[in-house]
């Protein structure tokens, strides 16, 4: 009968191989998906797309990078944002970095909220 130390080390070695296998599998999947990614990039270039189709419930969440300045509060000036995505979108950069002001280069998303 093998010793506990040998069994533990064999188990750890197997777990280590599985860990290394994650990296190998990632490289394999990456190579397989390269064609899809290129097709997606080509479609983005062809249609001049700017956003991912992840959050389609409102216009400022469908195209967060293109949203206008007040669309999240369109109902009235003190209206609360009511779409679920909105609550999960980060606040503007200016609020997060109090020392650096919001310049012309700050994201549209930051302005949108």
């Amino acid at each position: 009968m093998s010793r506990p130390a040998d069994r533990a080390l064999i188990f750890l070695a197997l777990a280590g191989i599985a860990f290394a296998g994650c990296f190998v599998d990632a490289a394999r999947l990456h190579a397989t998906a390269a064609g899809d990614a290129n097709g997606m990039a080509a479609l983005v270039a062809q249609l001049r797309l700017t956003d991912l189709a992840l959050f389609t419930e409102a216009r400022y969440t469908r195209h967060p990078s293109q949203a206008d300045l007040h669309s999240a509060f369109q109902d009235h000036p003190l209206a609360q944002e009511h779409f679920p995505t909105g609550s999960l979108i980060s606040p503007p950069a200016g609020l997060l970095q109090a020392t650096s002001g919001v310049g012309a280069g700050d994201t549209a998303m930051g302005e949108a909220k």
Partner: protein
Amino acid sequence: MKLWLAKQRYLIDFTLLALARRKTRNLGLLLVYTVLVFMLASVTLYSHALRQEAARVLAASPEVIVQRMVAGRHDLIPPGYLERIGRIRGVQMREARLWGYYYDAVTKANYTFMVPAENAPAAGEIVVGPALERSRGLAKNNGISFRSYSGKLHTFVIADVLPQASELVSADLVLMSEESFRAFFDYPAGHYTDIALSVANPLEVRNVALKLAAALPDARPILRDEVLRTYASIFDWREGIVLALLSAAILAFGILAWDKASGLSAEEKREIGILKAIGWETGDVIKMKFWEGLLVSLTAFLLGFVAAYVHVFHFAASLFEPVLKGWAVLYPRFQLTPQIDGLQVATLFFFTVVPYAAAVLVPIWKAAITDPDSVMRG
């Protein structure tokens, strides 16, 4: 060397047998530890892959989008506006875009109607995104009617369906000809939604934006860099939110590990006393505990990470998907391409394995340097 290896094997044997004496407690700790690593690794792997996917795909989006603002709101580009941009140096190509939103009461979802610059469908035909095809049960050559905002019913024939592989960017798209788009939305002739600019020199993009802002004060240039940063910040923020929610679990584990580490049980103290009394050196006791900490934390890290990898890239991160991806009626189905960041894995390893191994060692070292007699007497 051989002697050293043999000694370590005996130490591991002893450690494992000691762990086996408190089987339920130690297995419980290993399970909680593994689940914690699994959760942290799932969130970081998923967020990193999604961030990289967004950056890779959107790297092909237009360098600058110009919107016109009226009273702080996005307005249509009037005739003649496009020509004024053409005079700005550095702009290689300018192209007016036509797109808009349509709310479909049948699926209770918003679609993005768009006129492609090249290969637009013929009038009366549309090309639809895969999520729309699914939600409305459409197929090629089917007809579909939409009631426009003017109340008129417009019928289109599905000329094609966009490839499923591109769903991440095209789930809700409806591509149509300019003629159909203008007729459907009663769009005024010569007006456009916004303008896409291509700038020859990437270093010039910011200058072009500044020149645009000076020449057209009502224009709002949106640079590709800003789009990419927007997505990076969205996923960073979401990752932060999930980690904040998980912080309760991390804290609970911290308390558990601290409790185990800071206060040795009377039984453990007695055990150390006996070991020292029968001739073990302080170094041996510490080595034994070091192996205990390393075996538990390394097993938890490796199992947790592998489970997280399989969960994220082979089971589409089903546990955290709703929070990390968001949700929508028309939700794209996509498989993330794995992107493992070595630094991220190293950070995870450092913050999960090292603190535990260290926390186990400190109290043992304190107990091991005291006199065996006083340790045994407690």
